[in-house]
């Protein structure tokens, strides 16, 4: 039991969520479930609304319709204080780490601990070193953020994201722009941390191969809707054209190569 929520229940649930800016609808009736102990991948093309989902979960955006429930609480109904209390129970890894550039590696990881706890400094030191050790970067504790490679920055950010031992960790494009070794390291870390800490992990990615390797369950998002879902094996065997186009990287398919336009002949004045 964690905060009254049993392990069998979903830690986080999106129920028929719709979201958009003015007339533009970005998410149209999306329902997702994130149980504890599982890595759930959310895949989809650029602009399909994946990052918007993370922002809705964190309460940075509010849905137009539907509900986002974290530990049974409706996120949109929370006031600022409630939202902050909830966010302390969420870890978020940004695409490029989003480390604080005016702090070094150690202070970045210590940041949430210093802001949210009244632990004595020697204890904070031990905790930070343990978190850094978990991502293999204890030796880089006193590095400036500018000295880190892309993969190292993401690992430090991961150590920071788990500093308060949140039950939910969100990863926004964790594999983007990494070399193969760093990528494998980050992927292994996501899986291992998930299993060791028994948390719910959400991996937002357009990198199917790597997302499939570590995910227990996959949602495919296209044009603001969940067009397919299942375990990586089920998705791999799927004959659904949406899934096939995305998995095989076909240029044309349900997502068309041409953006909606009038016929070319009309534009060029060839038709009378």
């Amino acid at each position, binding site marked *: 039991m964690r905060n009254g929520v049993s392990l069998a229940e979903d830690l986080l649930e999106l129920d028929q969520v719709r979201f958009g800016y003015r007339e533009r609808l970005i998410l149209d009736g999306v329902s997702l479930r994130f149980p504890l102990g599982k890595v759930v991948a959310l895949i989809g093309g650029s602009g399909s609304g994946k990052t918007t989902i993370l922002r809705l979960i964190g309460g940075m955006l509010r849905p137009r319709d539907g509900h986002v429930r974290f530990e049974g609480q409706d996120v949109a109904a929370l006031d600022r204080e409630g939202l*902050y209390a909830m966010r302390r129970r969420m870890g978020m890894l940004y695409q490029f780490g989003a480390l604080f550039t005016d702090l070094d590696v150690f202070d970045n990881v210590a940041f949430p601990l210093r802001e949210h706890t009244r632990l004595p400094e020697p204890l904070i030191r031990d905790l930070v070193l343990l978190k850094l050790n978990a991502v293999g970067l204890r030796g880089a504790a006193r590095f400036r953020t500018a000295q880190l490679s892309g993969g190292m920055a993401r690992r430090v950010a991961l150590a920071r994201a788990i500093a308060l031992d949140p039950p939910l960790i969100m990863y926004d494009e964790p594999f983007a722009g990494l070399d193969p070794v760093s990528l494998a390291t980050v992927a292994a870390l996501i899986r291992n941390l998930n299993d060791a800490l028994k948390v719910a992990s959400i991996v937002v990615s357009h990198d199917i191969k790597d997302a499939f390797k570590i995910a227990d369950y996959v949602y495919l998002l296209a044009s603001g809707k969940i067009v397919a879902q299942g375990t990586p094996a089920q998705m791999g065997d799927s004959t659904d054209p949406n899934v096939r186009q995305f998995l095989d990287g076909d240029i044309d398919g349900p997502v068309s190569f041409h953006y909606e336009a009038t016929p070319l002949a009309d534009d060029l004045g060839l038709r009378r």
Partner: protein
Amino acid sequence: MMRMLSASWHWLIDRLVDVGRGARFFLRLCWLGVASLRRPRLVVDQIYFIGNFSLSIILVSGLLIGFVLGLQGYYTLRRYGSEEALGLLVALSLVRELGPVVTALLFAGRAGTSLTAEVGLMKAGEQIDAMEMMAVDPVARVLAPRFLAALIAMPLLAALFSAMGVLGGYLVGVEMIGVDAGAFWSQMQGGVDWIDDIGNGVVKSVVFGFTVAFVALFVGYEAEPTPEGVARATTTTVVVASLAILGLDFILTALMFSST
């Protein structure tokens, strides 16, 4: 015609919304600035950072302006045979006007732009977002200590600027040209009023500190989170802060010295 009217109407509404947002942001900064006194370490770090950044440019500029005041003042006063009033002229020009105004302009160029760029880059690098997701209010944690630090640093820098200016006036007027040192200092001592001159100068520098810090932080916080957006924001800070300083200076001067 209708389209033009509608566009101007929307423009007006947008600007009014901007003013409202700015005013809310200002009040929030003031409130959280006071609250950040509970974490003096953050404020002290920023005072060191902001003050130290601007110190050399302020000291050198103060000295150079003092040199020029010494020379110009001497040539003008000599026409009326009152060279011994040079000390008074230099000191009054500095504490009433040049100290606060020139310091604020330099401060906007040096510290203001760096604040805007820092906050803008934090936004572009998703650091502000990340902080928000970590349940830490970025206005309270990042902006408010910088705001308070700028408020504290600005009058101190203006005082140092004026002191250096007086020293510059002394070096040129007394040491180089040969104005009587006793007259230089005693006229200054007798003619400069604590409240009317120095006090009002301090009030000006505090107001300018508010102006520069608010403009720099607001523009940085509202910057478009892209490299171009941050570049544009730093330019905006210098332009808006400088114009605001000069405009406010006129208003303050009119209010303060109209009765004397």
